[in-house]
């Protein structure tokens, strides 16, 4: 069907751009490979899980950021968790940001 193939193409384009822009990396490809007929929605499932989990994590991070003085240790551990999740699904950019955030935490840089 035309509509379908059009949508497919759009999705494919979008996906490619995500890769190009560095949002996603090889790990995502691995996830895709895991998907098969038996689990057709695997990737979707995983990503949904990820979003839910990270939303929760981000909320706690925000909370921690509101406090003062900043508890860098806690922030660091949040970041570590977030980084782990992101890297598992291939969220490269997010992972990089997390790493950066952690650097700031280590340096005690609240502004960063």
């Amino acid at each position: 069907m035309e509509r379908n193939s059009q949508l497919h193409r759009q999705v494919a384009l979008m996906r490619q751009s995500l890769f190009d822009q560095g949002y996603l990396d090889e790990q995502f490809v691995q996830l895709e490979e895991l998907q098969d007929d038996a689990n057709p929605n695997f990737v979707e499932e995983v990503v949904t899980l990820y979003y839910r989990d990270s939303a929760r994590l981000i909320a706690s991070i925000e909370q921690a950021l509101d406090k003062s003085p900043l508890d860098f240790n806690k922030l660091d551990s949040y970041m570590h968790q977030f980084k782990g999740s992101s890297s598992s699904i291939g969220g490269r950019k997010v992972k990089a940001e997390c790493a950066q955030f952690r650097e700031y935490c280590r340096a005690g840089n609240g502004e960063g």
Partner: protein
Amino acid sequence: MSTLTSSCSWKAGDGVSDQFPAGLRVLVVDDDPTCLRILEKMLKTCQYQVTTCSRSDVALSTLRDNKNGFDIVLSDVHMPDMDGFKLLEHIGLEMDLPVIMMSADDGKQVVMKGVTHGACDYLIKPIRIEALKNIWQHVVRKRKNEWKELEQCGSVEDGDRPQKHLEDVDYSSTANEGSWKSGKRRKEEEDDAEERDDSSTLKKPRVVWSVELHQQFVSAVNQLGIDKAVPKKILELMNVPGLTRENVASHLQKYRLYLRRLSGVPQHQAGVNSSFIGTQDAGFGAISSLNGYEIQALAATGQLAPQSLATLQAAGLGRSAGKSGISIPMLDQRNLFSFDNPKLRFGEGQSQQNLGTNSKQANLLHGIPTTMEPKQLVNLQQSAQSFGSMSMPVHTHGAQSSSLLMPMGQPQARRHVISESGSSRPPVLQANMGQSIMSTGLVGQALGRSGTAENGRGLGHNAILQTSSAMNFPMNQVSDAPVSSFPIQSTFPTSKGGYPEDVNSSIIKGPGGGMPSYDILHDLQQIRSNDWEFQNVGVTFDTSQPGNSVQGNIDTSGLLLVHQGLSSGQSSNGHNRNISAAGKSLLSADGNRQVTTPNVGQPPTSLVDNPVQIKTEGFPDMSYQAVLYPEHYSQEDIMNAFLKQQQGIGPPDSEFEFDGFSVNNIPV
């Protein structure tokens, strides 16, 4: 939230499936649901049977409920309810399953910690499916070791120990393994096919050391007295149908190690300690995990157990006296079981801290530790007192050998740990070391070593430790640590005579984590150089080495002591034997242990190294010897640090000269 999902039906009690590695039963523990889901899918793709949980307590209870329901465990390092390493220790102790750690954190320290705690492997997140495809190798390896140990209990050469190949973490072990690998590899290859099949059939059903069973065990041991606690008698006393002597033996080994560990390393030692402790912790952790002591592991090591344990204890005890400095740190590490209480004795001041840690660790032990505690304390005290005089060189030797033995027996998982922890743990654990060899010196070492390596072995060692050291100190501290009561650490010498026998016979399982048991071997080798001073050092570090040289290196343990100073450590396992002989003479000569304490402090590093190397081998056999001194100098450093600390702690142990526990010498 704790979710437990089971992908397929369990293969009950079945060792290896026909389509191995398909059907491997994996348990995954991770608090991150995303990761958990991904891993589950990946593992299923590898055709494994997957069970997931997001909480450690759920995981542990699942494992306990299905004793033989899993082949391997994958665990995340950072978890909210329980630290991944603690979980690792528990599993290792109770079920002796291969455990793989995972984390996004790839820092060397963390990975090292994994190794020392006995992890079979360490994967960095994001996990690739290729990495998961190979995890079955750890299962096979472990089984093979256990099988072989059972078969060769008591035989020194343990060439079949497959070398663990860590994918991500490849510390010294590779270096060590390399040397003896060739010999072993050949053997392994031949036997591999058979073993695969045989292991499932030959493998004795794992004996689960439940709390009651362990209680019975401990009371039997106490009744007999740590020194005299030989598996046969314990078995009779326990009167449990279906329990074999090997089961008891290996359990005893672990127990001794545990004791040694408890009395071992004080953690507060500075800087160096941290690394040292880290290793020790691993060792201790292993010990603590002894609670579960898997019988197989024990059985394997068990062979060494009765005697080696004795020696180890003696060594441990003896050493602790001398090494107070070191022992304390070790004890701390051991907290889990307070096996190494004796060690703590010396460092009382230091040990205080250690004990604290020990107690913490001990807490982890479920059930068993607590029960053991009172008894152990008693034992330890008694033994400690008897050995109080550190001058029991004989014992230390014994301990060493035993410890050496012990470590060898230990599953390979420990190997890595051993190398690391070896140095830190009181060699005493080495109890495995054939008592004959080093009697006092060895014992101390063995005990010391075993601390780290032997998770299971600790038990055996502890016994030794108790006798040797009057380290009652650890006991006090470790309120939780059940085993803490074993003051063993301090005096190894006591057990000397008795343990050597065991040491020889039992194959020292490589301490879980680079157990110090190897140190004994290492030490033994060292002894050749007649560095009596080092003996102490050797002893302490034996834990890492003992494992290697245990096989017959009981003597070496004594030698190790001597060699403590020897950085040469490189002596092959074969040397250990010789060394042991020499060591003995040295040791005996040194009866009063006038070992130049100052030297001890220094050589330890070298010795430490060796033990570490030895440990990596994990096999007490000659194979270890060759490997003994391989490459791990990190351990040496650790040991040095440790020694330094210890020295400062206790009275100069020159008399001890346990096998290498340079506890005395170690300037704090």
